[in-house]
């Protein structure tokens, strides 16, 4: 990705061959490239994206039922054990702590963003104004993305740990 920012040091492009060369690169990207066999030609990108989503569904379909099955089969054997109850309580507390951490990140991120939005900077050109406003918007999106990713990770963490803990109680390791 070429970033074309408002920095004083950002190079301009004015050579007459720039557009024809860019169009050549576009045409080349539309064909199969033997040097990058995993890169999908542009016309087939929608198909590749759909395939990627299907692959994720397939992987999730392989993980979640497996973990649920492990937990479900073991649950009757462990649900009345004192140790299991203690671990469940500790797990709940750990999840709550991580949830509070996520909330703290959210508050910190919004505070920092708000402070930056309220900081009066000098702007002499429209270019710089647009750049600064875009940066703020992008940082908001980045904060949102980081939070969503962290929540997804915590959910996966809980799923894997619960299945592992319950399954292990049902079949304790040797030794």
């Amino acid at each position, binding site marked *: *990705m070429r*970033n074309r920012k408002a920095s004083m040091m950002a190079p301009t492009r004015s050579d007459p061959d720039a557009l024809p060369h860019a169009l050549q690169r576009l045409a080349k990207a539309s064909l199969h490239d033997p040097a990058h066999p*995993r890169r999908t030609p542009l016309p087939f990108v929608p198909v590749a994206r759909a395939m990627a989503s299907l692959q994720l569904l*397939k*992987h999730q379909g*392989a*993980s979640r039922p*497996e*973990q649920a099955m*492990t937990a479900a089969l073991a649950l009757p054997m462990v649900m009345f054990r004192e140790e299991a109850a203690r*671990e469940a309580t*500790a*797990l709940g507390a*750990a*999840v709550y702590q*991580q949830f509070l951490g996520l909330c703290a990140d959210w508050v910190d991120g919004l505070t920092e963003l708000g402070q930056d939005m309220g900081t009066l900077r000098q702007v002499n050109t429209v270019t710089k104004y647009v750049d600064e406003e875009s940066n703020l918007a992008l940082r908001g999106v980045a904060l949102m993305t980081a939070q969503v990713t962290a929540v997804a*990770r915590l959910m*996966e*963490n*809980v799923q*894997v*740990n619960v*299945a*592992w*803990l319950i*399954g*292990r109680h049902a079949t304790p*390791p*040797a*030794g």
Partner: protein
Amino acid sequence: MTVQLHLAHSSMFIGAGVVAGGPYRCVESFPTASAIAEDAWVQNAFFICMNPLIPEAGPKVPRLLEIAQQTAADRMIDPLHHLKKARLYIFTGSEDKVVDSAVVETTRAFYMGLGVEPDNILFDNTVPAGHALLTTNPEDNPIAANEPPYLNRWSNPTMQSWQILDHIYGGLTPPDGPPRGRLMAFDQRPFFGGDSRASMSRIGYVYVPLPTKKNVRPRVHVALHGCKQGASYVNLINGLPDKANSPPYGNRYVTTTGYNEIADANDIVVLYPQVEGIDDGRTQNPEGCWDWWGYSSPDAAAPDYYSQHAIQIRAIHAMLLSLGATA
């Protein structure tokens, strides 16, 4: 990775320094996490071997001991009796939020379960450090940070690398100034065949000290960098390498962590093999980590990352042989 390399070729090493690392084949703790093997290994890596929500959800030593014993019986690693006299430095910062200290404690328990003499293990979990190798450099991160380049400064007057090597080798001479030897770059590709599956960089480094004593055969220490610490690692922004702005963290690992200084004073050659971030659909290693969960294995269902057959371990072994190392 350090633990996998150590066990794979334990006859070659007199010890190992493990900074914030989990036990051998940790990701195979809960193989039924997914019906798809590579998913199971990654889920184990994240949620059991790095961040179990509670210590009880971490790796279990008896299972990993069984696995190690079976691997040795299958002759995929050196016989485990070589480990009995091994000297181990195992460290976890009490503020580490990347690899939980409870996991690193199982690394100690794992080695003890293999029969390593307790007096040979220096285990330290008392320093309020984040996930990092500790230095005395003023430009490095504060002690409790959990951020790249994962080099934090502590108040101790010596580098952590000096403590690691002093524990492993014993009785080392403290450095008396800047290193006088030569830091050399070398082409790593002949050692891994240029295969992108290895996720190894084109260039590796080796520090060769000026000999301090005549007729002394130098020792070789392998310094494995951590995730995001390789010389050519470039941070990702929105999934793309930020080549315009990323500082070369790896040079800091190779030149500022103190290994060269302590090596210089004690006739130790330091080998710095390098991996780099690759995430191309074939090799999933975006953060440039050494392989401890199987991304470099040709067959995810039958991984080999822990054995003498592993592409990275084979490469490092070949580098050691070319430096004149013997078993």
